[in-house]
């Protein structure tokens, strides 16, 4: 008998617009020691499946039909009392964010022992030995000394190991891991995934791994099911589903995953919201002409578009009226050069200072030292409020989170036309309105978007609007700070295609900042690697991905989940056309 057997599961949510199906007829069979991946884009209902198995559906959620059997026991319609006995004991959970899933006021030992005592009949002394052996099992070095520490004394990856130890306390049969590595850097992600694999095999625990990340799926799962809009699209052996997907949706999903091994000119992308041919192309054409008709575009500008030397940025933190503040050096002596029409990929783990460089370049952060030249002309960098320098107009930025980068109280038209109005790039209101709609057309948005508010759009559409706003300032250099990290993979492919198109058409230079090496590979001509605020390696992208020189770069590349199992995107593209 399968450990977990789900049949025809349907979950609905009561909303004020009536009942909406979050999961519709989902089925799954999971054996002991097996890792099953549940993959899908946001809103696909994957977390709802996890919550239904745990009996923890959020308010308004209700199981409409089907059955969930754990070891043959029906979980649907279990009483609250039975759930308390089952949850934590037979089924455990690993959450996404190790920062919030541990109690910061209790030591690791207290949390482990408490959980062990709740679920087993061990004495307290035995529970302590058990806690220690669990910590050793999940790979905490020097566990005997560290067990008395508080969560904040551990790094993110170590904390996630503690969370896993916590999930193992009750010797569960089934573990549900909801995006267990999404909050972690790649190097740590690889180790945590290896740990989950090892534990599943050794202890014979079934794992249901919920993620949006194809790399994670390819790395450790045995079987996988692809979900879309609450419906099961395709399920089967991971190698088969990723290598030869049969459903059109999974084919397109896999095709849009950026590969680290190979650069493609464009993502073979089905276009959900991409520019449709026809009505809007004349608008887009007008926008293109406007962008190219830059005053003085004829006169050739000499040299590199950007030349940054010796940039150092530090922050003061914790200071007050009577207290000395602490100085954190975020970026140390970094130099970068960027030629016209070129893309430089800036990679590194979180906290390496990538974003700080971007903010210093656009003048939001004041730098302590350094010199910045734009086509040979010096730009303000270390002065107070450097963003006020008017020659910075041609340097524009795209942010990571499209939900916070647009002012929610403004209509899209006002957002996109603000740079036009402020920089005096148009003669009057009529012209501003015309340019605004043509910019929106350029990024593939309908002209009627001008009258709507940002919350009426999806994440990908919002990112398009943000790009339109940046274009309206007539930039020559675009700084993209993790522009697709907050987006689903198919939307990411659209936005990356859009950025490539814009670059090809208008010869923009792009500084592309990302932690995601496969994405950077797809976008960059050259790559620069940051570690702890220092630039450790810089070079041509092809050479970098073939043979990185610095140890740190080598480590980063080695830890990136391998996508060998995934079918070749070009083959998938061919299937798409056929």
């Amino acid at each position: 008998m399968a450990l977990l057997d789900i049949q025809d599961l349907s979950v609905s949510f009561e909303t004020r617009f009536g009942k909406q199906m979050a999961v519709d007829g989902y089925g799954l069979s999971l054996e002991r020691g097996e890792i099953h991946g549940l993959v899908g884009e946001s809103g696909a209902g994957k977390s709802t499946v996890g919550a239904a198995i745990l009996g923890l559906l959020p308010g308004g959620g209700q199981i409409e039909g089907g059955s969930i059997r754990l070891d043959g026991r029906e979980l649907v319609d279990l009483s609250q009392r039975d759930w308390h006995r089952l949850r934590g004991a037979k089924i455990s959970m690993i959450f996404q964010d190790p920062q919030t899933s541990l109690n910061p006021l209790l030591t690791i030992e207290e949390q482990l022992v408490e959980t062990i005592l709740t679920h087993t009949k061990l004495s307290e002394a035995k529970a302590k030995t058990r806690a220690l052996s669990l910590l050793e099992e999940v790979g905490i070095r020097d566990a005997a000394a560290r067990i008395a520490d508080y969560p904040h004394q551990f790094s993110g990856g170590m904390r996630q190991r503690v969370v896993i130890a916590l999930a193992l306390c009750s010797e569960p049969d089934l573990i549900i891991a909801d995006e267990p590595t999404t909050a972690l850097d790649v190097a740590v992600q690889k180790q945590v995934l290896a740990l989950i694999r090892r534990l599943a095999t050794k202890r014979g625990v079934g794992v249901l791994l919920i993620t949006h990340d194809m790399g994670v799926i390819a790395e450790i799962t045995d079987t996988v099911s692809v979900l879309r809009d609450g419906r099961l699209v395709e399920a089967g052996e991971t190698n088969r589903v990723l290598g030869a997907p049969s459903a059109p949706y999974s084919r397109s999903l896999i095709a849009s995953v950026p590969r680290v091994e190979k650069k493609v000119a464009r993502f073979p992308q089905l276009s959900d919201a991409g520019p449709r041919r026809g009505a809007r192309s004349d608008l887009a054409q007008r926008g293109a002409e406007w962008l190219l008709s830059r005053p003085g575009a004829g006169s050739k500008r000499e040299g590199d578009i950007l030349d940054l030397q010796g940039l150092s940025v530090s922050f003061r933190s914790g200071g007050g009226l009577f207290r000395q503040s602490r100085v954190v050096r975020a970026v140390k002596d970094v130099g970068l050069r960027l030629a016209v029409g070129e893309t430089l990929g800036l990679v590194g783990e979180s906290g390496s200072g990538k974003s700080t460089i971007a903010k210093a370049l656009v003048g939001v952060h004041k730098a302590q030292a350094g010199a910045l030249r734009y086509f040979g002309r010096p730009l303000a960098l270390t002065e107070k409020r450097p963003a006020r320098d008017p020659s910075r107009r041609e340097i524009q930025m795209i942010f990571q989170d499209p939900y916070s980068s647009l002012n929610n109280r403004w209509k899209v038209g006002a957002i996109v036309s603000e740079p036009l109005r402020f920089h005096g790039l148009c003669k009057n209101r009529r012209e501003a309105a015309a340019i605004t709609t043509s910019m929106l057309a350029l990024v593939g948005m309908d002209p009627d978007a001008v009258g709507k508010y940002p919350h009426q759009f999806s994440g990908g559409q919002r990112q398009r609007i943000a790009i339109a706003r940046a274009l309206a300032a007539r930039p020559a250099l675009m700084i993209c700070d993790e522009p697709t990290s907050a987006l689903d993979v198919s939307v990411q492919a659209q936005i990356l295609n859009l950025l490539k198109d814009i670059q090809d058409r208008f010869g923009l230079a792009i500084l592309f900042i990302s932690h995601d090496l496969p994405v950077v590979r797809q976008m960059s001509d050259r790559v620069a690697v940051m570690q702890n605020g220092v630039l450790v390696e810089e070079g041509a992208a092809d050479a970098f991905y073939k043979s990185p020189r610095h140890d740190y770069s080598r480590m980063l590349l080695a830890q990136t989940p391998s996508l060998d199992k995934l079918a070749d995107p070009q083959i998938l593209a061919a299937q798409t056309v056929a």
Partner: protein
Amino acid sequence: MAIEDSADQGAAKRETLSLWRRIGRRSELAYLFLRSPPAMIGALLTVLSLGATLFAPWVAPTDPFDLAAYDLLDSLLPPAWAAGGEARFLLGTDDQGRDMLSAILYGARISVLIGGASIAFAAILGVTLGLAAAYLGGWFDHVVMRIADVQLALPAILTALLIDGVARGVLPSESHDRLMIPVLILAIGLSLWVDFARLARASALVERDKDYVQAAEIMGLPAWRIMLSHILPNIAGPILVVLTIDLAVAILLEATLSFLGVGVPADQASLGTLIRIGTAYIFSGEWWIALFPSLALVLMVIAVNLLGDFLRDALNPKLR
């Protein structure tokens, strides 16, 4: 081809969903409002009392400020339903023979005027300072917030009394009565601006780190423009909530000051003045002079508070 088809279906489905969401967002406040009886009662009472006070000259039976309209012979008459009451004075009369109902309607008018004006003054001052403190930071932030701390250490009544006392001392006595209302507005406003300053600062600190503010900075916009057109609309929700709740506080504060005798002069009696006059008669049996203005005050404050509570819950996504 198959991929394109399923993609189009997906797009269509998303389109309808976002349409629903669009309608939902627009009427979200209305949706929550119609499901909150306290909010509806609050709104009804607020509209009724505001309407009655605004249209007092047309609603009230007599004009209590018109010396010719009342007669000392009618003084201290009980409400119409009590023994000895007369039908023309529904809520009885005060010691001057004025109709209580009219006095309350006109008095509430002055209370609302002073409360509203002082809260507007406090909000403009407080939001400006708080917003600038958050956005500019540095020494300006320190100075403004320390002043706010000092202000918080002084009870609102004390501040108001202080300003009132200084004004009485400085202003010539003949212009005194005329200037009393502006002085009260200033006094109450100055004792309430801290609420707004602290709230505006706290909310603006959250907003200023969001990317849209940085996008505006990258555009090179001047600080005042970023504060006014970008940050202010985004922190308006919580400020609106404090505005309604503090309006009740301001009305109460005015009543307290008038009750203590430092408020508006007796010939322009506000609710507080009426209550003060009434207290002198409670023990001699003329309870209605103090009771009815007090009830009117309680009703108004509760109404505004109910509305404020609703707005606080409705505009705070964490409480839903």
